[in-house]
């Protein structure tokens, strides 16, 4: 029998609507599960008192026939990158230890307004910099399918929480693959919407021109429902698109018959794990059987995307992270120091990966190097965008692997930053081009590790992406498998 915490969010919503389950029961199930899986390191902060109060309020609204929509009473959790008023927000960094924000981010407020029960904050790589969650400033997180392996990053905590039933859905952020890659490694669905589709206000910035908020969920329908709540224009975010939000669930069951799906040949180069390749190729076959027209296409600048990405992302990060100076918030260890010593001391609390990226970005922007690095990277970015524009003139969506390999072992890549950076090789181009991309389970390795497939669409084509993902999900039951814990 399916355990309560194994339900999808929309299944739970149904049971809440039919009064089979109360929000308090669902919340308690999650809290117990969180307690039982403490070893995974998914959560950085659990607010059981607050969550139960929200659940109680939701149950009361339901009794009064006054609910706030399909997510009312559904327990969710957030990557610790989202500003939550009065609730600790650290972005996985010691530099923000003890920080309680004075305001809610826009998406947090939207979830609250939708009646969501907020369980707490999820582990992540410090300032969202990492592909394994080993760079968390507090504790590395573990993959629920094999605790010796990484969950992926930087939204590793989010993927674990969904896969292991520690929350019914979560919100993460994706700068170069940080939603899709951990979703693939943990066997859940993860969507990075179009850049500007979801507000970034109240989301701690890593690389402003690349960051985007998105859901990690148990299935595609959940993904659509959460996106429905968080998408839309925000006057507090000048980069947010003032475009109407469509109904993301309306056409979700429509199938892919007649859709043109492109296979970018550059994404199937040597270096990709054989089992991953086989699973993705099988998925492509499924699409063909479902009536999609498959064709090979080319994204010729793919090779340059990752190098350009690490220049753009680190340059922006070096500037975005300058505010963590210990002057206004966060720990300051010795107030008796002089100004430069105080800066040094405060900023020495950044972890090694964050320091590495700040140094890289500072160098890329410095006088005399700007044109050679940052300027050149922006040009590559334009070429990558053009590649995709050409591709979408020929097809409706693209299919690629999400990650070149299944979850790797903790410590395996930590000593080799470049190898770690390549974990995002299939996802970064999508951020460089600002496109929507989704990862969904498409199989398991013989060791029982999840494999993900990535679908990419044109800007604002989330509805098409969800419909395409859902068509596959209906055929296979990968997403119903749960890790044995």
């Amino acid at each position: 029998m399916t355990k309560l915490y194994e339900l999808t969010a929309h299944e739970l919503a149904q049971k809440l609507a039919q009064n089979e389950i109360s929000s308090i029961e669902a919340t308690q199930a999650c809290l117990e599960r969180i307690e039982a899986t403490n070893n995974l390191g998914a959560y950085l902060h659990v607010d059981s008192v607050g969550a139960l109060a929200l659940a109680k309020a939701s149950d009361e609204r339901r009794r009064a026939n006054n609910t706030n929509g399909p997510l009312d009473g559904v327990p969710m959790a957030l990557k610790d990158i989202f500003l939550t008023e009065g609730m600790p927000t650290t972005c996985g960094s010691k530099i923000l230890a003890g920080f309680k924000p004075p305001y809610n981010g826009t998406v947090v407020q939207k979830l609250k307004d939708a009646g969501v029960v907020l369980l707490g904050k999820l582990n992540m790589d410090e300032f969202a910099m990492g592909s394994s969650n080993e760079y968390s400033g507090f504790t590395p997180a573990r993959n629920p399918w094999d605790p010796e392996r990484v969950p992926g990053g930087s939204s590793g905590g989010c993927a674990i929480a969904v896969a292991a039933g520690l929350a019914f859905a979560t919100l993460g952020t994706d700068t170069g693959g940080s939603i899709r890659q951990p979703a693939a490694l943990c066997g859940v669905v993860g969507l990075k919407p179009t850049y500007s589709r979801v507000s970034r206000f109240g989301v701690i910035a890593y690389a402003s021109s690349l960051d985007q908020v998105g859901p990690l969920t148990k299935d595609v329908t959940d993904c659509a429902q959460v996106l429905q709540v968080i998408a839309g224009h925000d006057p507090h975010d000048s980069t947010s698109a003032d475009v109407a939000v469509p109904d993301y669930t309306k056409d979700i069951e429509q199938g892919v018959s007649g859709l043109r799906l492109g296979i970018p040949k550059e994404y199937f180069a040597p270096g990709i794990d054989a089992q991953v390749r086989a699973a993705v190729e099988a998925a492509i076959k499924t699409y063909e059987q479902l009536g999609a027209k498959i064709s090979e296409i080319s994204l010729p600048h793919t090779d340059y995307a990752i190098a350009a990405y690490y220049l753009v992302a680190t340059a922006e990060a070096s500037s975005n992270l300058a505010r963590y100076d210990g002057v206004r918030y966060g720990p300051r260890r010795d107030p008796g120091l002089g100004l430069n010593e105080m800066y040094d001391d405060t900023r020495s609390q950044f972890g090694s990966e964050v320091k590495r990226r700040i140094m890289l970005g500072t160098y890329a922007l410095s006088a005399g190097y700007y044109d050679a690095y940052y300027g050149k990277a922006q040009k590559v970015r334009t070429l990558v965008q053009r590649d995709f524009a050409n591709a979408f003139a020929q097809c409706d969506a693209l299919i690629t692997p999400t990650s070149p390999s299944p979850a790797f072992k903790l410590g395996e890549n930590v000593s080799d930053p470049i190898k770690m950076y390549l974990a995002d090789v299939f996802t970064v181009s999508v951020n460089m081009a600002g496109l929507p991309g989704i990862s969904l389970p498409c199989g398991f390795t013989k060791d029982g590790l999840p494999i993900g497939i990535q679908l990419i669409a044109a800007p604002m084509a989330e509805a098409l992406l969800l419909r395409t993902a859902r068509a596959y999900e209906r055929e296979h039951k990968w997403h119903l498998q749960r890790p044995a814990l």
Partner: protein
Amino acid sequence: MTRYEPVIGLEVHAQLRTQSKLFCSCSTAFGADVNLHTCAVCLGMPGVLPVLNRHAVDLAIRAGLGLGCTIHPRSQWSRKNYFYPDLPKGYQISQYDQPIATDGQLIVEVDGATSTVRIMRIHMEEDAAKNVHDDLIAGNRSYVDFNRGGTPLVEIVSQPDIRSAAQAAAYMKTLRQILRYLGVCDGNMEEGSLRCDANVSIRPVGETKLGTRTELKNINSFRFVQQAIEYEIERQKEVLASGGTIVQETRLWDTQAKVTRSMRSKEEAHDYRYFPDPDLPNLVLEPSYIENIRTELPELPAAKLKRYTTELGLSNYDANILTEDAEIALFFEKALAVFKKPKAIANWVINEVLRKLKTQNDDTAAAATLTDAYAQQIGELVELVEDNIISGKIAKDIFADLKAGDSPKRIVDEHGLKQVSDVGSIEPLIDEVLAKNPESVAKYKAGRTNMLGFFVGQVMKQTGGKANPKLVNELIQKKLS
């Protein structure tokens, strides 16, 4: 001995007259309690994003148009990165290689000679906060007041066209006058609304290459601009004369000692690592939007001066005084709208109104009193005098006691202050005065014609100032002839 020529360029920071900050809705009011006007955005809290204040953009466009600049339909926000406690985000949002306006000019007059100073660029940026160093509390601590942080500024950068300290001061004054006319900046230098950095170098006369410059930072008065530049020119001459070389550095004007002092050398200057701010889209302005603002521009001081002398027939002297300040010119024009005799209105505004304001000795109080209602009162008053309804003496009495809400016409009616101009009622009074002062009459007749004023004064006294003095004058002369 080598003769040197100074080469000076000014970078003027002007605070835009907005109610709220450049990227958030916090107030820009001056003088509030420490850190009262702050929010998550202007404190640079994690997760915040800037949202542009369109009114600040409008004002920057006005400034650009008023200074003859080209307004660019597309400009860009950049980040200027450096660490300082008064800079909460660790970068300042500014405009760098794509500013909102470029290529303007300003006509400057020094001792009757006019010259043109080209304006290189005008860009928008947010102000930094203020460090407060307090040795008294807990010893040697520093604090930051973020009230000013995020206030909108324009930086107006001139070409190095200025050749003397006096010209630099005149440039500042003219710039302030125009910005105030445009309503772009209140020009209040004590509150830091207008401040300037001066780049000063010297070169042998005839040389075309620029010499090594020093930058004089944060000068906040016309006097200091002139003094600091004068000092710096002399200092540089002495350095060169004694065989030394000028070091490129930032210097401060010590207002007490009246010297410039080295603040930091450019060798340790920051690499600001400018790059386009990814949180803000490019500032795109429709040409029609810019043109709309152009049509709303007020008449600027130079044009006003010309119109006052040619169309209104005022003297150069009067026109200069009236156009010096936008508020005064506007006040004059409003009074003139009530009663259309330019010279008479000008005389009253200059001799009475401005004198009264000067005794208040406070620019802001003055501006507050130059209301539309006050202009209406002055217009009425001048009309009453010019139409011979009241005497100048009565008019000055009314003016001295004028309160808000008073109507001079009503005061004259209610207090019966109308001038007496009928011969029948004045003649007996004259006879009475002459009869009472036979000795004075004798003196007058003996040739002391200046006694006339005495007789007139006596008659005026009798009538409480209401008699028409011109008529009294004529009648007395007739009687004594």
